[in-house]
């Protein structure tokens, strides 16, 4: 039976991962296809990458997206870390239940609703839509993801360390930066990365919140896809996939390195 089970397991793993990875692999392979037709292989070529860098619309959108993602991820990380501290450390206060709800609700909220409601707010407040409205929209949903990631690390952190520092006369703000922050830093960085990729990916919320001059890359890709599959879009997608993969590999190597070092100091 063990033999048969493992045969079954190998098959299900193979099919499962083939399903997850084949579409992405095919996309990457065809971005190097010389032919304009998606199903005809015209030989290996990087011409679509060349054309991509000539395409001003896409390059502008990429630059907008990079700035939006950087600014929104940074602010969302600060706000999300504060929210995590509130959730784990600060105990009861008036309105805490509402706060909990507001942290978890955006995680399950359909994007169309978040996008629509933010747009209506911007219109009601008379905000000119553009770069900053997209940034605000992205901060609002990604700070909740950051809060959840940081919270899970903060729960396991031994609070007595910080208390000891305070008993020795260290002010609370300083003890946080000197003791707690270095320990939760990996989670804070992971939160930043998550916020960055969420912002990089978002189409629906950005479509509602955007205005003239703030077309992000997903909005641009989406409008191109509606016109039909083009090899240039395959090339953009491949570059995005490569960037994200690079980021994740770097992050996991860094965390492995840190763990090895920690083990060495302990052992």
């Amino acid at each position, binding site marked *: *039976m063990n033999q*048969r*089970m*493992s045969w079954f397991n*190998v098959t*299900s*793993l193979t*099919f*499962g*991962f083939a*399903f*997850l990875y084949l*579409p*992405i692999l*095919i*996309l990457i392979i*065809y971005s190097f296809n010389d032919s304009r037709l*998606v*199903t005809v292989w015209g030989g290996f070529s990087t011409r679509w990458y060349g054309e991509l860098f000539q395409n001003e619309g896409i390059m502008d959108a990429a630059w907008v997206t990079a700035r939006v993602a950087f600014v929104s991820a940074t602010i969302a990380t600060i*706000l*999300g870390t*504060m*929210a995590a501290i*509130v959730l784990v450390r600060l*105990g009861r206060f008036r309105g805490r239940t509402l*706060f909990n709800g*507001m*942290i978890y609700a*955006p995680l399950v909220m*359909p994007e*169309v*609703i978040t996008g*629509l*409601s*933010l747009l*209506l707010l911007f*219109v009601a407040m008379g905000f000119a839509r553009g770069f900053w409205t997209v940034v*605000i929209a992205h*901060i*609002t949903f990604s*700070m909740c993801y950051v809060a959840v990631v940081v919270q899970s690390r903060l729960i396991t952190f031994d609070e007595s360390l910080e*208390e000891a520092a305070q008993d020795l006369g260290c002010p*609370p*703000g300083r003890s946080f930066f000197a003791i707690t922050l270095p320990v939760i830093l990996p989670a804070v960085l992971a939160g930043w990365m998550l916020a960055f990729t969420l912002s*990089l*990916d978002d*189409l*629906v919320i950005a*479509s509602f919140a955007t205005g003239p001059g703030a077309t992000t890359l*997903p909005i641009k*890709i*989406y409008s191109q*896809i509606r016109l039909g*599959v083009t090899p240039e879009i395959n090339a953009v*997608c491949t570059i*995005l*996939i490569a960037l*994200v993969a690079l980021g*994740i590999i770097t992050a*996991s190597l860094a965390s492995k390195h840190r763990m090895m070092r920690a083990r060495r100091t302990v052992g």
Partner: protein
Amino acid sequence: MSTRRKSGWGRRLVIAVPYLWLLVFFLAPFAIVVRISLSEVAIAMPPYLPVFDLSQGFEAFWQDLSALSFDNYAWLAGDPLYINSYLSSLWIAGVSTLLALLIGFPLAYGMARAPHSWRPILMMAVILPFWTSFLIRVYAWIGILKPEGLLTLFAQTIGILSPDDQLRILNTNTAVYIGIVYSYLPFMVLPLYAALERMDASLLEAAQDLGCPPLKAFWSITVPLAVPGIIAGCFLVFIPAVGEFVIPDLLGGSDTLMIGRTLWNEFFNNRDWPVSSAVAVLLLLVLIVPIVAFQHFQQRQQEAMR
């Protein structure tokens, strides 16, 4: 916790900043959605009436308030387009959830029975596609599913499809199912894996030693122990799938009705802000039932773990 930190402006500041942000940019917008869903459409900017203007004094405010109406909701109830959108969203999300379970279960099972040293890598491999853009992953399927696409080519090559025929999958509900299952599979696999990995393998061995056939042992031991994972996975796929916009829009046909897409069209194509607000309010009401049920379920799980 030290009493010193319980008071003081530092604590208040740490609470106030994220609290205010969420109040202004998360809660207040909902109040506005509800309010606009009770307004009438107008050819103006913003395109709805009445617009509250407190500078006109309270008299005018009350007059505006009395102009609010439930007309938009009556309109939604009267037009089969909206009711069908809601029903079809629930149906498509339900079918996709079931399919994701059927595909995700063997995968999670295989992962949980893989050698220990493989498991972190397999976990990573399930999470990794999740970090790549949702839009890109949906787009990748267009090239595969379209009539002159790779799946047709593949079927013709292995001979199950004659060279003159083409597969008609893109722009049908089948393509939407594939898209949802593909995009949300990690959500299904991870909780299933967590439940199956905790399971004690010796239970199955004991059943086998006592003469229980493998299939029966699977149904009477493995499946019941995996139930928490199955429930969590189903909720995590079903809830976001109901409000999905990108997948039905890119992979579905013109007759694929999903509520997220209806809302989008109502807003961007018809520019009817009051009706799209009403659609949003009702979508939220539809989703509150599964969301609250899921929260309740998770709380019970956490209590059971302690």
